[in-house]
Structure formats: structure tokens, C-alpha cells
């Protein structure tokens, strides 16, 4: 009698555990931009990798949405911003030390670690309307022009200008400017 083989069944479909070719292509085309987005918002590599991986894990389990097919760059970018916002909002108030941890007071000018200012600024930005956050990140993390941003997000340049203006107003208190 043949030896029985007891296989542990996957709870997920076979398709969901593999990177399908179309997803791999999307990854190659957009991962650089998505990672830079997450890194710019989160300030550290581990969290940025988390976001990138999570985006594609979500896509593994479903058919590609129409919005993604129509505008993959815009869709994925929005998803990366939103996922990064989720991470920022989940962070507790920024206190890095614990009982045994000692942190000095002045930022090292040469450090590439996320500094307190960046964290506080991103916490403030994460509190904005996500549409405004998307525009801010494209402008200041990716250094994109209004026209580029409008093209990527599929909205008019006027809308971009309005969102930037609105974001600037809402961040005014944080920035400490009187406009």
C-alpha cells in the first residue's frame, strides 16, 4: 500500500502565495518610487520596506483593481502614502528612550536618522486630508512640479495648487510662520 502523504493545506489560495508576473512587473516599474515615498514619510528603512511589501501582499490576494490598471503609478503612489499615514498614526508619541536608554539633546548635523523635526512634521502632515498629503510628499520628497503631480494624480494643476495652498495654511502653526 502506498504511503499516505499528509499535506498541510494552505489557507490561502496557491495564487496568493506567489508573485504573479503582472505584479512582478508592477513591482519593477514602481517599487523605487513607492519605497522613496514611504522612506521620505517614515524616515527609516524597516518601516518603508514594510509598507512596500504590504502593498504588494494586498495585491497578491485579489484581482488587480480597475483603478490600478487605469493608472498604476497614481494608484500605487496613493496606496503608499495612505499606508505610510497609517504607520505614522499608529506611532506613539515620539519618545525614543526607555529606562535604560539615553538620548542626548542636540541633533547630530550629520546623522541620517529620522530626526524629531521630521517626525513631528510628518505627524502633522499625516493629520491632513490624504489628498493634500499626497501632493506635499510629491512636492517635497520627490521634488515634482505641479504639472507632474497633476499628471500622476490625474487632476488639474489648479487642484494641485489649491491643495498645496490648503496644506500650507494648515501647517502654518507647525511651521511657525505667519502668512
Amino acid at each position, binding site marked *: 500500500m502506498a504511503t499516505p502523504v499528509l499535506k498541510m493545506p494552505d489557507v490561502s489560495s496557491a495564487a496568493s502565495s506567489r508573485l504573479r508576473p503582472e505584479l*512582478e512587473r508592477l513591482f519593477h516599474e514602481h517599487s523605487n518610487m513607492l519605497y522613496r515615498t514611504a522612506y521620505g514619510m517614515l524616515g527609516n528603512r524597516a518601516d518603508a520596506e514594510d509598507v512596500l511589501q504590504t502593498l504588494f501582499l494586498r495585491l497578491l490576494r485579489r484581482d488587480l483593481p480597475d483603478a490600478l490598471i487605469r493608472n498604476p503609478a497614481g494608484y500605487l503612489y496613493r496606496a503608499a502614502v495612505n499606508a505610510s499615514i497609517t504607520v505614522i498614526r499608529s506611532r506613539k508619541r515620539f519618545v525614543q528612550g526607555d529606562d535604560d536608554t539615553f538620548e542626548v539633546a542636540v541633533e547630530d548635523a550629520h546623522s541620517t536618522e529620522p530626526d524629531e523635526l521630521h517626525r513631528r512634521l510628518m505627524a502633522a502632515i499625516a493629520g491632513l486630508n490624504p489628498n493634500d498629503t499626497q501632493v506635499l510628499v510629491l512636492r517635497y520628497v520627490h521634488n515634482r512640479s505641479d504639472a507632474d503631480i497633476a499628471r500622476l494624480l490625474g487632476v488639474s494643476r489648479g487642484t494641485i495648487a489649491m491643495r498645496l495652498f490648503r496644506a500650507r495654511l494648515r501647517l502654518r502653526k507647525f511651521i511657525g510662520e505667519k502668512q
Partner: protein
Amino acid sequence: MTRSARRFDDFMNRTFAPFRDVSGEHVNAACGHVLDDLRDGSARASAHAAPDLVLAQPPFLAASSLKRTSRWIQFAGAAVLVLAAAVGSTIEWRRADSSLYRVIEGAARLGDTIQANSGAAAILALADGSRVEMRSQSELSLERTDDGLRIRLDSGSIIVNAAKQSGGHLYVQTKDVTVSVVGTVFLVSAEPQGSRVAVIEGEVRVQLGTTEKKLLPGEQVATNPAMASAPVIEEIAWSRNVDEHVARLQQIAPATQLPSPVGAREPRDVFEAATIRLAAPLFPSGGRIGGPEPPPQARPPVPGALLCIGGELQIDPRRFAVSPMSLQGLIGLAYGRTCQSMEQLVGGPDWVRIDGYNVEAVIPVGTPGYTGRQLRNGAAPKLQAMLQSLLADRFRLVLRREMREMAAYNLVLVTEGKLTPATETRERVILQFPVNGPPPGPSFRMAGTTLARFAETLPMYTGRPVIDKTGLNGVFDIVLEFPELAGCCTGGTDPRPLVAEQLPRRLQEQIGLRLEPTRGQVEVLVIERVERPTEN
């Protein structure tokens, strides 16, 4: 564009610059890492998961404490199965999205073949209490022997946590090796080109043909010399219990071989791999440790001050990199002396202080995650120990501690009532504050701290040891502000010289303390022996 919009732009550009200008190499490496994981599809389960437990709907990208493993959680939640099989009994598993067990029809019997499908590791619980963790895609069967039980591993890898055998033996057999144990934890891999055995705890006997070899913790053997060798920690990285295994390995690691009387007292933690490359000299004329020398006008009046280590420092979960940094700077990092006076780190040839080195190293799996600031502040013990080992191995560094009388400061109380009692009992340090942002400019804040701890921080500005002589035992919230330095330090200017210059006055005005020059016995590190680094 209006003036305010320009100011907004300037501020945003400045704040995001370090994150915008990340190198292509960094991005490619990170994306490649993620892609490999996605392609692999065998998500390693979170080390934070409870043993034997399927992950239940973990929060999406939770707090930063999960950062090193959170990448795996969602995938694991979808694909991880935990299999509990008792020999002669049933096989059970439960779904990630359910709290219910399911039982496969029929029992797993001796001789049955058990496969861990793609997705993640599985765990077999044997009737004697032993546990066998199977890597995904592994395949094994169980057989009774005259004196115990045999696990026949056909392919893949397993980690066996063997229970104490009462008079019998547990064997693991592959096509070309047999491992016998009494009670221990070890890894066996059956690969197409041969087998590999590595011990995590206890000892095992490995039978290769007619040869028997005893393996101790941290040791491994491969049946085919062509098989690539990797540290045991790497071999077990797929395990759900990797942290536990790493802790075991570290506990029983042999005593340090460091030649340094200083290092010999430290644990022998090592990087998995490291490269050290000579960079351009930092300061041909000599000078402070690490980063660029402050402009002459910014130098503080205190001799020897501002020895804090500069240089670029990156610590990702598994990557450590500095560039460029002098050996003296590296010693400062390794021994928590990044902000001490030059007189506390003496000896050795000039190149120790002048030549810059770029160091890159791989941090072993399971090492606690540290920030660069923790390392600079001497609060990253494991990483510091790895650096100490690296310096001892590659630079043949030998250090000696000794007490020397030298210039120092006493921190004394001159005006009562200016210190603010702490609002929290727990000591919490704080936080660097922006130095190049908008007003109020740089500030130095510590919450819930003793004055002794506060004094420990001051050498980064004074350049000399500071001894707490205030006689105050309370816990305080300390704030020193430097409003006139607002906007002082754009363009990468180091603010510390400017802060140092004003420190004595601010101490007295704002918290009623004074620095009084004195001489006292201070511990110094003496470089007894050092060589240029060995080849990578």
C-alpha cells in the same frame, strides 16, 4: 511665489532633504530585499508570535516595536499553518483566520510522510515531548527504532528541540548522515548536494559513514565540502523561534578571545560579516574625533571640548555602516565614549586619529534594534560588543583602563529653586530638538533625570568629565534653551560648539548650576597595541 510660500518651501525642503536624497544603492537594496521576500513566498513567521500560536489578525503595521518583523505579519497571517502532530495520534492545524482547530481525517502514523507546504514553518509535537519545527517545503517521516524514534528527513530543514530521552534515543537521518541526541536543540538540513547539522544547545553525535563526530553549540558540519558555509544564526533564520535560538547560542557562546583586557570583560558578540576600507584622512593636522572640524570662530573656550563623534552612521535592522570615521571614533562608539575628552582616550599612533575608515557590517539576526543615538550614547550594548570584537580582530586593538588625574569640572549648585522637580518619576530622556528649524532654536531637555545623569551628558560640550557635586538627590526636568542660536545651523553646521560656548552661562541663569574647574581621578582608555586593519 509669496515670501511666506518661499519660506514654507525652504523649510520643507530642508526638513526632507536627508530623506529625499537617499542613494539609489540604498533604494535598490531595499526593494531587492522586499522582492526576494515576495518571490520566496515563504514568509517567516513573526518572532513576536507566541509559540504554537497562529497569528490572529495582527494590526496592520503596528507600532515601531514590531518594525523588524511586522513586514511578515500579514503574509504570515494568510499563510502560516501550525501543525501539531502526535505520533500515533492525529494531525491538527488551525487556520490563521480562525480560532478553531481542524483535524485531518486519519492519524499520522509511523511511516507516514509529512510535508510542510509552502507558506511557513510547521511544528510537530512528538509524543515524548520533543518538538520538530519544519521549514516550509520540508518533508519527513517518522520511524520506530530498537531504542527510540527516527526522523527521516527527505528534504528541507528541521530544528529539533529534543526532550530528554528516558533510556532511548532520538535520531534524525538524511540520505548521508545520522544524528543522535539525548536532549538538545539542533538543526538538520537535507539538501540535494548533501546534509548539514548545526547545534544550538546541548550536543549531538553525527555519524557520517563510519566516522562519528561530536558537535557542540554553535558548531556545524556539512557532508559535502562544496556546500556554502553560513553562520548557524543564518541557518536558523527561518525559524519562528529564531530569537529564542539566538539567545541560546549567545548564552553558551565560548568566552571571549579578545586580547584586550578591556574587551575581555565584554561579551563576545560579533558581526556576521564586516568590511573596513580606508577613506581620506579626516584632519591632516589632527583634531577632534570623527566629523568635520568646527570653524575657528565657533570653537569653544574650553580646551579639548567637542569631541563628540560625527561621521555618517547608519543602523538598519541588519546593516551597520559608518563613513568616514577615525579608529579613535570607532573606539568611542564601541566603548560608549563618543563625547568624552581626548585625554580620556589616549595612546597609539597618529593615524588612529587622522585616518578615516568606512565600515560596513551585517548585524546578526536577533540582535536588538538600536538607533544611532543609542549607539552614540553608549546605550547599545550588543552592538558595542560587536564593534569591540571587530576592532580587536581587525585592528588587533588592545586597550587598557586606568585612572588618571586630569582636568574636570564639578557641577555645583549656586542658586536654589531654579531646578524644576520632575513631573514624572520615570527617567526619560529626550529627544533631540531641532537645531536648524524655526525659533526657539536648540534646546537641551532631559525629563525625570538625576543630576548625576545630567552631569554625564555634559562632556559632549565641555570636553572634560563633569562630576555632580550639587548634593541634590532629587529627580528633575531640565531644560536649557538657546534662543539666540535659532537658525544658527543651517547647511550642516554643527551646533555643538555654539551651544558649548554658551553652556556655562545658561546653566547658571536657567537652572542655577555652575561648572567649576577642578582636577580629579578619571578613567581613561589607553591604546596599548594597534595595527592597520587586516584585509577584508
